[in-house]
């Protein structure tokens, strides 16, 4: 009948397997990224803090087994007294049944769900994004942020001793020299100290010039795709630049600067002259956003239904004139089925590393578009 005292601090099995479980959640979320980034609950949540929580069902993480149908048949319960047949105890928490033919779609109450924040989705999404063609611009400065502990040295202040690394060094030295990996005979050579360096962060200003074709109708799908793409692009740029300005331009045969709200809502009839928007964009760069001081990211969303071949040629002229001044020029063609437009075909002839096009036909294409615009495969030396 002993009560034993023991040191439990090395007991790590649970946290180890928990970490594996969390890694599986992450992998499952990454698989669903295509749906998540256009999820209205996420991009519609607005607020700047990124801490809004969205519940995401992850069917692939459920532990399927042979079990009885929890919603069929009766069960035994217990009341606090005086229960009678016919008493209503509650309603079903969620309506039974998922999508037809979808294994594991029901019952609603025990679908495995995780809570994710916008920041977590962003973390997964931005993992493989990079800023292409970032070069020193006048507006960028080195800013001193303060000391950060991210260096390890063999000498240092005892108060900054890194115990974990010290023990590891001792273990490794004993494994090497003393014939067994154990913690034994700590020598000064084993000591590891955390030490700080002054962190300097590049900061700069970027401007996004968002252009959109409002000539046709802005259907629900187009609106959602444009919004999702824009939401993540801005969020991504904000994670890399200290200041990000956004200018919204809408156009049909003429272009004008509008506010964010109108940018996503406007729908007007009439023809389309894409060159009008590009010309306005060029003017903005010349007059307000000098390439010497700004990193410039113009993006154009359109269904590509341009007025005439003549205007296509005019558009490309203006485009090629702008390209040396911008960091990246993106063209996203949002189509609901159908073929590449004449504009897309014309753009096919533009060969410039800073010009990238993508077609968005379904929700997961938004992730593809982001990866294409912000891919990290730029030649060595120009990556940030």
């Amino acid at each position, binding site marked *: 009948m002993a*009560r034993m005292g023991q040191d439990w601090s090395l007991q790590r099995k649970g946290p180890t397997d928990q970490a594996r479980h969390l890694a599986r959640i992450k992998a499952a979320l990454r698989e669903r990224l295509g749906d998540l980034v256009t999820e209205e609950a996420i991009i519609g949540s607005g607020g700047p803090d990124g801490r809004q929580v969205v519940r995401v069902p992850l069917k692939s993480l459920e532990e399927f087994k042979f*079990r009885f149908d929890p919603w069929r048949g009766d069960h035994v319960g217990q009341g606090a007294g005086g229960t009678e047949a016919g008493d209503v105890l509650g309603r079903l928490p969620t309506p039974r049944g998922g999508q037809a033919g979808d294994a594991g779609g029901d019952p609603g109450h025990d679908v495995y769900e995780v809570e994710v924040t916008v920041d977590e989705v962003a973390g997964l999404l931005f993992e493989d994004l990079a800023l292409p063609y970032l070069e020193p611009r006048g507006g960028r400065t080195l800013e001193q942020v303060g000391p950060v502990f991210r260096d390890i040295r063999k000498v240092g202040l005892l108060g900054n001793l890194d115990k974990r690394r010290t023990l590891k060094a001792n273990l490794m030295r004993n494994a090497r020299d003393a014939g067994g990996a154990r913690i034994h005979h700590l020598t000064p050579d084993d000591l590891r100290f955390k030490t700080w360096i002054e962190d300097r962060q590049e900061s700069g200003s970027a401007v996004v010039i968002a252009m959109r074709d409002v000539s046709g109708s802005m259907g629900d799908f187009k609106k959602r795709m444009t919004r999702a793409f824009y939401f993540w692009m801005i969020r991504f740029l904000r994670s890399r630049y200290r200041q990000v300005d956004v200018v919204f331009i809408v156009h049909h045969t003429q272009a004008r600067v509008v506010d964010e709200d109108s940018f996503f809502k406007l729908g007007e009839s009439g023809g389309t002259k894409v060159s009008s928007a590009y010309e306005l964009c060029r003017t903005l760069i010349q007059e307000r956003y000098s390439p010497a001081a700004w990193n410039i990211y113009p993006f154009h969303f359109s269904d590509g239904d341009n007025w005439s071949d003549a205007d296509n040629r005019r558009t490309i002229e203006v485009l090629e004139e702008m390209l040396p001044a911008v960091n990246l020029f993106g063209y996203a063609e949002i189509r609901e089925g159908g073929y590449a437009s004449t504009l897309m075909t014309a753009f096919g002839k533009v060969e410039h590393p800073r010009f990238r096009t993508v077609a968005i036909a379904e929700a997961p294409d938004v992730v593809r578009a982001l990866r294409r615009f912000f891919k990290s495969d730029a030649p060595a030396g120009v990556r940030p």
Partner: protein
Amino acid sequence: MIRLPDAHTIWEAARSLGLKPWPVHFEQVPASVLYEFAAYLVPGRMNHWSYGKAFYAMKTRYDYGLAKLYEMVVNANPAYAFLLDTNTPLEDVFVMAHVMGHVDFFAQNQCFRVTPPDMLEQVARHAERVRQYQFTYGAGRVEKLLDAALALADHVDWPTPAEPARRDPRAAGGARDTYTDLGPAVDLPDTHRVKPREANPDLLGFLAEHAPDLEDWERDVLAMVRAEMQYFWPQVRTKIMNEGWATYWHARLMRVLDLSDADAVDFARLHASVLQPGHLGINPYLLGYRVFEHLEAQAGSDAVWLAREVDDDVSFIRNYLTEDLVEALDLYTWGVRQDQVAVQSTAWQVVRQQLVQELTHGGIPVLHVEDGDFNRRRELYLIHRHEGQDLDIPYAERALHHVAALWGRPVHLETRILDAPSGQRRRLVLSYDGKANSNVML
């Protein structure tokens, strides 16, 4: 000032009242460790993410103050009990008294006769072997295998005591000594056709022995999972009795131990918190405790001692849940009708029958291996022994993937399901061929 009794005093008191517990080692552990043991059910068990998931869920509930576990006891001789290191001294006494009931039950109830005396060491060896396999064959392969094995772990046969071991004749040569402890060896002619002589409820054991394409180490892992599940079966079968017995005895032990008035009041509060009614389920502590108390009042203490030795939950409820008790505990049956959760009956026989059905086979569907050479193409044919409860079909479809992952060939499961238009149960065969599910109504 009365000093609180120590572990030894409590053990002696338990023995003086007639309990025969094994010796108990108590250890005080922090919450993170206690919840870890509770997630793995035994300390030192093999690694798998599903235990990590359980640990995370329990720990989160504890951290937010939604649930508190005071102790966790391991069925072994000597028994191990882990106490939360933030318990008050009185909570510790209460928990130790409760543990005496559990350990006596482990030691004396017939369901537990089959527990291997060295199970803790076995579990540790399993963990070590799994770790070795992870090194040799890669963590990914081992995880996939365990995903399937653990999903099917419910489907092993009940361990029965002291049956002379029937061994696979091929094992006698020593060629398969890695898993000679693998059971239940069905004597089979060594032919292409694999059909169990009698309906075989031991799906995992059957797969471990007869799945055509598994490697030896994979069979070993299945055998380990199977052995661990067999160790837990008695606990699954006696949840109500075990908790009821421990509660019945902590109440009695606390009465004979020397407590100050203040401690007696604290104890009464703890005791009441254990005995909260269960709402849409039953609270096994409360139900078991009340049945034992009732039995003692009606039939005397001999009947109580006998029940503790020979019953499991099914026979305990069937024999001793009386009309008075159903009424006093306000038990009822409930079900879903038109999206409403409503009380169906409070008639005591209906309630008792429903509870017995829920407890039968631990609430786990019984699957039999019918044929290992179905269609003469080595396909596996399983039959669900339908006893009134329909399977969760979407879940079963996905669970078949796990069977197919181990069997390596198409698998089928025959069950019966309520056919809405006719109101009749019809035979339904779920199939999975490694790529797609298909269902056929017979």
